Each structure stands twice: as C-alpha cells, then as structure tokens.
C-alpha cells in the first residue's frame, strides 16, 4: 500500500448506571498524497490527470501503459485515446460519457460503447476533464471489482477535495483551467 499510515487513538466515555468506562479504540487507515498534473491544454478542453507522489507515473499513464501492448485490449485503448484527442479539440460534452459513480459526484467513464475496458474520469465541465485510471470490467458493476472501485473512489475523493478547495479558496477553477499548487490527501 502506498502513502503514509496514520494511527489515531480515540478515547470514548460510556456512562452506564452512574459508572464511567474508558474505552480506547485504535483506527488504522492509509492516505496517499497526490497532485494534479496537466495532460493537454487544447482549444476547447483542458485535460488533467492525478499523480500519487509515491508513484512514478500518473494515473492516466498507468492506464495507458497497462494496455498499450495488450493484444486483446490495445485496440479499445487506442479508441479511447483517439477519442480523448477529439474531446480536447471539441469539448468534454456530457453526451460523450457514460455516467458512473454516484449522483453526487462527477465521475464518468469511457467508452460508452460495448467494451470491457473502462477509463474513469472526473468531468468538471465541458471544458475541464480529469483523467483517472481504469481497467477491465469483468463484473456486472464496478463496485464488485476491488480494482475498479478503487479507481472510482480515488476520483470521488478527488472531486470532494476540489469542491472543498474551491470553497476555502485554495483551488481556483476558471472556465477551462484549474489552478492550484495543493497536494491532496487521498
């Protein structure tokens, strides 16, 4: 597992029949620091991806490298990459994506057509798209796949942190750009 491990000790007080009990609970979880990386700044859309500081490659490069030489999935990968080129030039319109994630987030997937390959993205607007990672969907829903649900969760968390950053002024989102030097704890 990448990133730092944080261990918290929580003391809870339980009052029962005038007796006070002290209870200590330890919670272990892992957080990974990540930053936003520019992929392509084009006429109608700016593409970004996410880089975990503990990794050599960005999320989108990992997806690309995983399937570029795969006999079965390389053609589908190339269709996705070619399509992203079109999106860069014409915009990330809603109709080009498969809605994924939850109603409350902006996670989408490519392609919309029949394929087992999935690339997960965060579509902030017609002019801002953040590319995530992806893989082969061989379960009925992405939630049933540990790998794919991990990629979706990363984007859902990133989406939440962007919204928080915009609110507290540490992130600026203009018509076609995201401006931030922030690292994100995902």
């Amino acid at each position, binding site marked *: 597992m990448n990133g730092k491990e944080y261990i918290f000790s929580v003391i809870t007080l339980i009052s029962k029949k005038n007796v006070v009990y002290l209870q200590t609970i330890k919670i272990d979880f892992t957080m990974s620091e990540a930053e936003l990386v520019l992929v392509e700044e084009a006429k109608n859309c700016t593409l970004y991806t996410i880089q975990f500081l503990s990794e050599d490659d960005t999320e989108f490069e990992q997806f690309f490298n995983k399937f570029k030489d795969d006999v079965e999935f390389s053609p589908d990968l*190339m269709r996705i990459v070619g399509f992203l*080129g079109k999106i860069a030039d014409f915009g990330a319109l809603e*109709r080009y994506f498969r809605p994924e994630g939850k109603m409350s987030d902006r996670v989408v997937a490519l392609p*919309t057509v029949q394929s087992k390959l999935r690339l997960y993205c965060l579509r902030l607007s017609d002019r801002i798209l953040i590319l995530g990672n992806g893989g082969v969907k061989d379960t009925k829903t992405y939630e049933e796949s540990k790998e794919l649900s991990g990629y979706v969760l990363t984007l859902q968390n990133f989406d939440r942190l962007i919204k928080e950053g915009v609110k507290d002024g540490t992130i600026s989102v203009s018509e076609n750009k995201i401006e931030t030097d922030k690292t994100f704890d995902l």
Partner: protein
Amino acid sequence: MKTMNTPFKQMLEAVPADIQQEVDLEFAISNRINDLMVLRGLTKMEFAQALGKRPSEVTKWLSGQHNFTIRTLSALSAFFGESLVRVC
C-alpha cells in the same frame, strides 16, 4: 503545475491510422446528427419516437463512439432528408 511525463501527442501518435479514421468518422457523424436534431428543434425523446427507436439508441448515436451501420445511416439520412456521409 507539472505536465505529464509522456506527452499526450505521443500517445495520440500511437493510435493506428485505421482506428483514428474510425474515431473521426463516428465523432463527426454523431455531431452532425446532434446539429440536425437541434436545427429541427427535436428533443432526444421526440427524435427517438419519430424514428420508432428507444431513447437509449439515440444516446448511443450521440455518444460520438457508435459504430453506425449503413442501414442506420440510411434511415437517418432519409429522416433528415440529406446524406450524413458522402462518398467521394
């Protein structure tokens, strides 16, 4: 802000010519259908009903990634009264 180590243009250059041609055509046809729908003031639902199709079928056509058959292209061309694809 950092830029991705692998230039996006390099990734695009890896796309084989036949696949890029396929992507270009699917994307262009989809956008043309969308333009014509807007020009005629048709919603997705109205468009689907007029053609006797499900709205989900229209969603596929408008996705920019649909592999259109000649039969579908012919039906759409007849509906709009103009060819969606021209053969030179």
